[in-house]
């Protein structure tokens, strides 16, 4: 699963933070899963479990929080949520799941039709916080 690659990246980053902090225990990790990428939380947790093999903390250490995807049009300034782009086909959603920037091939501003928009929030996977023992 594609989610496994993202989970592996998260664990590699948390491990780097742990190493840089003298190997202090990892108590909790908060992750943001952007709506645009449509990461499957179950598949992502399975990926975390696989990537955490042999490490002294498990998938239960990770808190998954979802972020609504919103876009901002650079032409007319309109802010809109992904839900306001109803014409996306299943195949286009799949493309955006693999590579969120594919949205620029398929979405347009619902206000003015411009392809020049920015993703204001909810793109993909990011680490919000890592709590280490002794913090």
């Amino acid at each position, binding site marked *: 699963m594609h989610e*496994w690659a993202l989970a592996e990246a998260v664990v590699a*980053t948390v491990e780097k933070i742990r190493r840089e902090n003298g190997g202090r225990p990892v108590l909790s990790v908060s992750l943001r899963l952007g709506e645009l990428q449509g990461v499957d939380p179950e598949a992502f947790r399975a990926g975390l479990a696989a990537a955490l093999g042999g490490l002294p903390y498990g998938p239960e250490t990770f808190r998954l929080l979802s972020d609504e995807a919103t876009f901002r049009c650079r032409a007319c300034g309109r802010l809109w949520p992904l839900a306001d782009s109803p014409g996306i086909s299943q195949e286009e959603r799949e493309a955006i799941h693999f590579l969120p920037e594919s949205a620029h*091939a398929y979405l347009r501003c619902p206000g003015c039709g411009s392809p020049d928009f920015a993703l204001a929030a909810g793109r993909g996977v990011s680490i919000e916080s890592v709590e280490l023992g002794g913090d």
Partner: protein
Amino acid sequence: MIDPRPEVIGRRLAPVRRILAYSSAKGGVGKSVCCVLSALALIRAGCRVGLLDLDFQGASAHLLLGVQPHFPEEQGGIRPLRAREALDFMSFAAFSRENAVPLRGGEVSEALLEMLAVTVWGPLDFLLLDMPPGIGDELLDVLRLLNRSEFVVVATPSALVLQVVERLLALLEELRLPVRGLIENMTRLGEGSARATGTAGRGVAAAAERHRLPLLGSVPYLPDIEDLLASPDPLRGELGGVFGGIARYLIGQERIGVV
């Protein structure tokens, strides 16, 4: 917020021995053609080769390779597509198909990071990067994220192209980056390298000499090159000679420890 993707890129590319970025500061000089033909020649020489099309806004390597864009398989990440039976291949076109992809610089960087973080390359002797023209976001991201890249610079005998390409060479020299040589593309009879024409100080060969770089090969101007690329064996005839020589040179560099 911490972006987890950069941390895993080194691991994704660990099975890749060498990364060659086919670059030019100018568009339309045939980077993609030279990159694709080099990849096929390296495969013919027995190497395991991958090709990553980094020209997100003008992806065309899939057209030259005859690959119908489709979603990659998922297995611990995404697996490269297969082209010409032996070439591992990845392109933005796998997701955008033949749609226009209007991206700004930050979005280009995001897409590049994502592709590098989730694409699982198998063991490769060479990963060739088909770079977009210019010295903008993609080049800067390659320098940042793929800092063991070696460069192959493509130019045509056009004075205008050479002027712009020499700026790229100067930048790569300033940054002390390894440039493996120049490829002269679209050489017409009588206007090619200075060595061939005796036109001192002009041409791609003269530029190569100025920068103390080898001229890896001169590719003749072939009006039917797209038909040749679409044929079962694009390396037959003259192209096979030129790119076979380039492949041997690139492989030989490794054997004699120049890398």
